[in-house]
């Protein structure tokens, strides 16, 4: 199990928690309700739809006190939330795939305005080829836009991380929007046992809402929000740099804050998730495979079997993908002689998986050569099975003695 292998033992007294059975989309909706946003804006899209349906029902049933805006598209969904956040609201939405693409214009701007909006991405592959199924292509495509992006492995982690996301986003040292990524199909519809935190406990965890102290549209403290800046003259260049540097600082600060918030969560609720990078059976591992999201469950089973068969292999899972947890990952990579990275999306420019591409930059900082290779699987809803991971393990194991392929390995190519 995930929690059992982490370095810090669970010392918390578990609070009273209701146990329910639900799918990932419902878990996300329940997490949202517990975080008490003021405003939710929604537009349906597969495989996100049941998430916003659950949110709408929670509000309709009086179990959640929020204003809900059924907007006419994702572009307006995020725009409504920007306005609400500037007026002081805690805000939430969810989308994926084509919806995220349509939302891109305000999406880019959200991080620039430092608005702590939380948005689930129920990840879906990019079209075209036409598809409505899961994959990380949507979230990966917008990884360079200044949002914090965390990926969940389990339905419970979806619920817990959704609540934590608000606290991370609204931390004064961060003030950035956060995407909670849950794998379309596998987590969105995967049903599992979930412990539901107590509302009063969550309220105490969340603290006081304060989302527009830095920028506001409020007649009580009038200001011009986002006046024109930049250009080559006057204060333009330095002003623009100041804003951009601030964004970068907020991103880097979030690495610390994500760790702190996960620690506090563990203390209060007794569930401990690796905040940035998780190591699984890395003690004595000569080589490792890297995973992201729900695929990690099957990968861990494969690692267990490989370990039982005497292979010295471990697993490194990324939870926080943006900002990329360079220092944390360096510590894990320092332990291995070879690395296989499994992506659920495609990096067209480098002809490899995006996470592999990012990891190569970290490997360079290691100061020694670690042979590595890219695996791509699980596109458009395809399953990555324990069998696939055994192939990954075997290929990675051979890396130190054989040249790494220049092409990625497409795990589902012959399925």
């Amino acid at each position: 199990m995930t929690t059992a292998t982490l370095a810090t033992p669970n010392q918390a007294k578990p609070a009273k928690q209701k146990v329910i059975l639900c799918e990932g989309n419902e878990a996300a909706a329940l997490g949202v309700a517990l975080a008490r946003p003021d405003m939710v804006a929604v537009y349906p899209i597969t495989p996100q739809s049941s998430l916003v349906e659950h949110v709408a029902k929670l509000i309709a049933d009086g179990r959640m006190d929020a204003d809900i805006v059924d907007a006419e598209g994702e572009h307006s969904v995020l725009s409504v939330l920007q306005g609400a956040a500037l007026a002081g609201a805690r805000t939430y939405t969810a989308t994926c795939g084509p919806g995220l693409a349509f939302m891109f214009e305000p999406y880019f701007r959200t991080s620039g305005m430092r608005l702590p909006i939380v948005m689930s991405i129920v990840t879906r592959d990019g079209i075209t080829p036409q598809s409505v199924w899961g994959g990380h292509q949507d979230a990966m495509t917008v990884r360079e836009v200044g949002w914090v992006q965390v990926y969940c492995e389990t339905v419970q982690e979806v619920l817990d991380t959704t609540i934590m996301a608000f606290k991370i986003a609204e931390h004064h040292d961060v003030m950035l929007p956060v995407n909670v990524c849950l794998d379309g199909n596998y987590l969105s519809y995967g049903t599992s046992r979930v412990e539901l935190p107590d509302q009063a406990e969550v309220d105490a965890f969340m603290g006081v809402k304060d989302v527009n102290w830095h920028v506001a549209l409020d007649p009580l403290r009038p200001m011009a929000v986002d006046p024109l800046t930049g250009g080559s003259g006057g204060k333009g260049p330095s002003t623009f740099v100041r804003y951009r540097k601030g964004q970068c600082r907020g991103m880097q600060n979030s690495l610390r804050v994500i760790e702190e918030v996960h620690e506090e969560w563990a203390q209060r609720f007794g569930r401990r998730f690796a905040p940035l990078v998780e190591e699984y059976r890395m003690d004595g591992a000569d080589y490792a495979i890297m995973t992201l999201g729900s695929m990690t469950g099957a990968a861990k089973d494969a690692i267990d079997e490989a370990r039982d068969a005497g292979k010295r292999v471990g697993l490194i899972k990324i939870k926080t993908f943006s900002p990329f947890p360079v220092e944390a990952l360096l510590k894990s990579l320092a332990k291995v002689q070879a690395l296989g990275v499994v992506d659920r999306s495609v990096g067209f420019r480098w002809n490899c998986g995006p996470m592999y591409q990012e990891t190569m930059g970290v490997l360079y900082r290691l100061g020694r050569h670690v042979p590595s290779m890219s695996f791509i699987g699980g596109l458009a809803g395809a399953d990555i099975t324990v069998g696939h991971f055994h192939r990954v393990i075997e290929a990675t194991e051979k890396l130190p003695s054989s040249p790494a392929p220049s092409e990625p390995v497409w795990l589902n190519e012959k399925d």
Partner: protein
Amino acid sequence: MGRSYNTIAFDAAKCDGCGDCMTACATVKTGSTDKSRSRIQIVGDESDGFELALCRQCGDPKCVTVCPAAALTKNFDSGVIEWNASKCVDCLLCTVGCAYAGIALDEGVGHVAKCDMCYASPDGAPACVPACPHDALTYITTSRIYNEVGDWEDLFAPGLAGCQGCNTELLMRHTLRRVGPETVLATPPGCVPGMGSVGFNGTTGTKVPVFHPLLTNTAAMLAGIKRQYKRVGREVNALAIAGDGGASDVGFQSLSGAAERNEQILFMVVDNEGYMNTGMQRSSCTPYGAWTSTTPIGKGSGGMPSQGKTQDAKNLPLIMVNHRCEYVATASTAYMQDLYDKLDKAIQASKRGFAYLHVYSPCTTGWRFPTDQNMEVARKAVETNFVMLWEYNPKDGLEFTRPVDDPLPVTEYLKAMGRFRHLSPDQISHIQGKVVENLAFVKQMAHRQSA
């Protein structure tokens, strides 16, 4: 600020010298029908044209200055220069001092007499104006706007950087001071922020909270703002001053969505019929035949010359009517009284739901006319029925607020600016045909919806 006063305006082109105004005045003031005793005098003849001899109720009156007996005084409540018979010494110096022949000897009584605007009459309006059978005289009452709002705070800073002769700045200042300080103002990319309303590098041109939405999401962002203030129980106006391009083209989806949800927003579109801030490109509100920088004039190919925009303008305000908004109206900066009435209604409507105000705003730079002709061009657009001034609400339907029953030919409007200079006779007849068709369409709508 000082006060402004109503005035009698004279249109010489409409006057045929019939003298009915003089008869009316003499009747009211002297009890006789002797035109020579009227305080308004029409002079001249048909060949040289008619002129008006009438007291202008000057702000700096020479008659008052030259009077040795203090018999003439300016009444700052009514604006009228009053004559006091008990003080007058009949020296007639005032008749020499006046450049307008506004005060003259009334031989019937042996004293001077002058117009007092009939301000003491029961309706407070001059008797001469309604007597004119040709509408050559009009009683201009827009001073009300100045007197009512002149002292209200101008919520834009001085020194906004509009093009010379642009009346959008006028419109913005009037609108925001009317809507008031409890407002969040959205000015999507275009001329309005281009003037510096949101600002540049740390300075701003607006005294209320102001922001650049994206060109695409003005209505959506305002909806979020308004809803959050409603949620916390605060009365805050959500106001957009947007261009036609952002509203009718790329921003239309969020506009339509917000209207359908009946968000409590006042959305004002300043229609200068193109993307004027970015260099005068075509929008869907650009009229047929107009030159823009993306519908330029050229010889074309295959014998098909390029002669400006080839499609008619999208009628955005009518589309908004079909959203059954709380209030929809068209307005023109040449008719401020009309605009103000509509602004008042739109503000009230925006407290219940979506209010949409479409203001036709000529662009000196992009439409190519002299910078002192903006009001004239705006007026000609209405007088030719090229644009129509009307208002709509779901209860009363659509009604004309300034019907033009005897419109000028559309060429009177087209020839006022350079962007139509190239038009062929066929194009002009297409435009005239569309004016007639549009008028008939809106009239039908007015008839049907109010029935």
